[in-house]
């Protein structure tokens, strides 16, 4: 039921993760949206998801008019996403019309129009009461018909017809060299144009979505990374434009009484994000594990992302210094997810993090170490990703702890540290020094937003009971 609202216009949820958030409700309702991109960029998948989700999530039947693939091809594509196309058709929720234009069969003589197409589309829409329509890809008509003038004017008429018919349409188009689409379809679609891009940068495939046009909305020309996995397309969440995060005055423990004591309030603020830096072997992971344990003891769901150790390794290593994480793993209060950074692109990592966070709804998230991500992305890309992640965590008031490997001499110049340290609320730096052939471990609170803290470097030792701070030097 179409309701006339007083807003500029209503929107239709696409069912594509992330896109509906970015657009604030989906694509313009009852208008055509152009989705363009080069071959293999995901246009057809976008279209299929739009229709399929329309059926499963929003009870809107859909018509898929395909100019390129046959019915069986489409069915295969859709099945691979886990949708039962045959059932959709049997339940009268979906009609697929495959328009085949065989140029060699056709001769043009005299005046004609494309009314046949209109009739087919109309019939398909009426037969199931469709609210969503896909034309994929209408540019194929240009390969079959010579009379371009007729074609263009009929396409223009078709888009107007779709508006009048009251269906939300997704039109796909092949990327052109100088124009958005090869045939310049963007001329006829004024409401919404989305561009899908697919690039291979340093052997990692990256996909980006850009909203080129969205009438009535102020949209930046931001590109949003997106992924294609077994569930279809997911667009990565955007950062909030305003810094309107909820804050808490509640104090929580870092997991170590001694370290809590270094903070003026005897602990850290709930919902804060902490960065732990240090060169190799400076006990960053141990500190992160204390943080983890503390969260679990508060009975808070904790998610630990490890880029270096397997869950078993982590648990065993921490066990040896009396941090027992086993019971928390067993009760599923703690979930450890390990993966090698180089296995997939940055977007996949962020998406995975995001998905796991959505799935488990943790109150604490650990990422150990974030510096590993530099092996799969440029500094700028990793920075963007971290900004998004931290923003997401802050929006949900999730306690966060990130570790990062730094090089002794270059700490201030390490760019991830540079970015995250300004975003993080707490920054603890760990150090190892060899003095007189003895390894001296120390840590220092570099900053703690919103509260006083000890600035002096504090030495500590690690034994089988864990980290123990050494008495502070009374000398000034």
């Amino acid at each position, binding site marked *: 039921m179409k309701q006339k609202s007083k807003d500029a216009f209503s929107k239709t949820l696409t069912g594509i993760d992330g896109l509906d958030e970015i657009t604030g409700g989906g694509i313009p309702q009852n208008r055509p949206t152009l989705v363009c991109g080069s071959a293999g960029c995901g246009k057809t998948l976008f279209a299929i998801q739009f229709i399929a989700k329309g059926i499963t999530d929003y009870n809107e039947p859909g018509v898929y008019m395909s100019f390129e693939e046959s019915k069986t091809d489409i069915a295969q594509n859709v099945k691979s996403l886990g949708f039962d196309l045959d059932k959709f058709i049997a339940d009268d929720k979906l009609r697929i019309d495959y328009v085949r234009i065989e140029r060699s069969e*056709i001769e043009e003589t*005299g005046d004609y129009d494309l009314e046949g197409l209109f009739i087919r589309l109309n019939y398909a829409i009426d037969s199931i009461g469709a609210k969503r329509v896909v034309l994929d890809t209408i540019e194929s008509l240009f390969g079959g018909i010579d009379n371009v003038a007729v074609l263009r004017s009929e396409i223009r008429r078709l888009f107007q017809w779709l508006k009048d018919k009251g269906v939300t349409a997704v039109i796909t188009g092949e990327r052109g060299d100088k124009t958005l689409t090869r045939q310049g379809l963007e001329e006829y679609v004024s409401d919404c144009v989305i561009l899908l891009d697919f690039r291979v940068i340093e052997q990692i495939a990256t996909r980006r979505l850009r909203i080129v046009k969205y009438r009535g909305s102020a949209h930046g020309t931001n590109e949003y990374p997106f992924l294609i996995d077994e569930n279809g397309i997911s667009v990565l969440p955007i950062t909030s434009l305003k810094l309107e995060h909820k804050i808490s005055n509640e104090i929580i423990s870092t997991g170590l009484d001694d370290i809590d004591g270094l903070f003026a309030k005897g602990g850290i603020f709930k919902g804060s994000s902490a960065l732990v830096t240090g060169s190799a072997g400076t006990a960053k992971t141990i500190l992160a594990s204390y943080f983890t344990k503390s969260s679990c003891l508060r009975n808070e769901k904790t998610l630990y992302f490890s880029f270096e150790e397997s869950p078993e390794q982590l648990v065993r290593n921490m066990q040896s210094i009396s941090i027992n994480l086993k019971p928390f793993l067993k009760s599923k209060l703690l979930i450890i997810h390990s993966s090698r950074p180089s296995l997939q692109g940055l977007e996949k990592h962020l998406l995975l993090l995001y998905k796991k966070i959505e799935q488990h709804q943790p109150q604490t998230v650990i990422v150990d170490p974030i510096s590993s991500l530099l092996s799969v992305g440029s500094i700028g890309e990793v920075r963007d990703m971290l900004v998004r992640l931290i923003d997401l965590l802050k929006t949900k008031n999730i306690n966060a702890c990130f570790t990062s490997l730094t090089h002794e001499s270059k700490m201030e110049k390490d760019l991830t540290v540079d970015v995250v340290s300004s975003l993080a609320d707490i920054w603890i730096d760990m150090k190892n020094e060899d003095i007189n052939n003895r390894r001296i471990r120390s840590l220092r609170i570099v900053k703690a937003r919103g509260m006083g803290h000890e600035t002096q470097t504090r030495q500590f030792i690690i034994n089988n009971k864990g980290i123990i701070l050494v008495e502070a030097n009374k000398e000034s």
Partner: protein
Amino acid sequence: MRKEEKFELRLYIAGQTPKSVAALKNITKYCKEHLEGKYTIEVIDLLKNPQLAEGDQIFAIPTLVRKVPEPIRKIIGDLSNEERVLVGLNIRPIPKK
């Protein structure tokens, strides 16, 4: 003399529009002239039977489909160009006397 196959033609229209009327008039004329007795023309009005458009893959109106002899040939337009229609349907024109 080799017996030639009968031509089975289908003309798809969408109501009695000028183009459709012209197309029917034209094809009937050409058939009378060049295929005397060896043809059938079936007129399908898609406004009355929209479900029939899919079968023959009709997207343009008017469309003339030669079902027999095979292979299928399609001619779109009002069929005003006689020569092109005959060539398109592969009809050997009977020269006018």
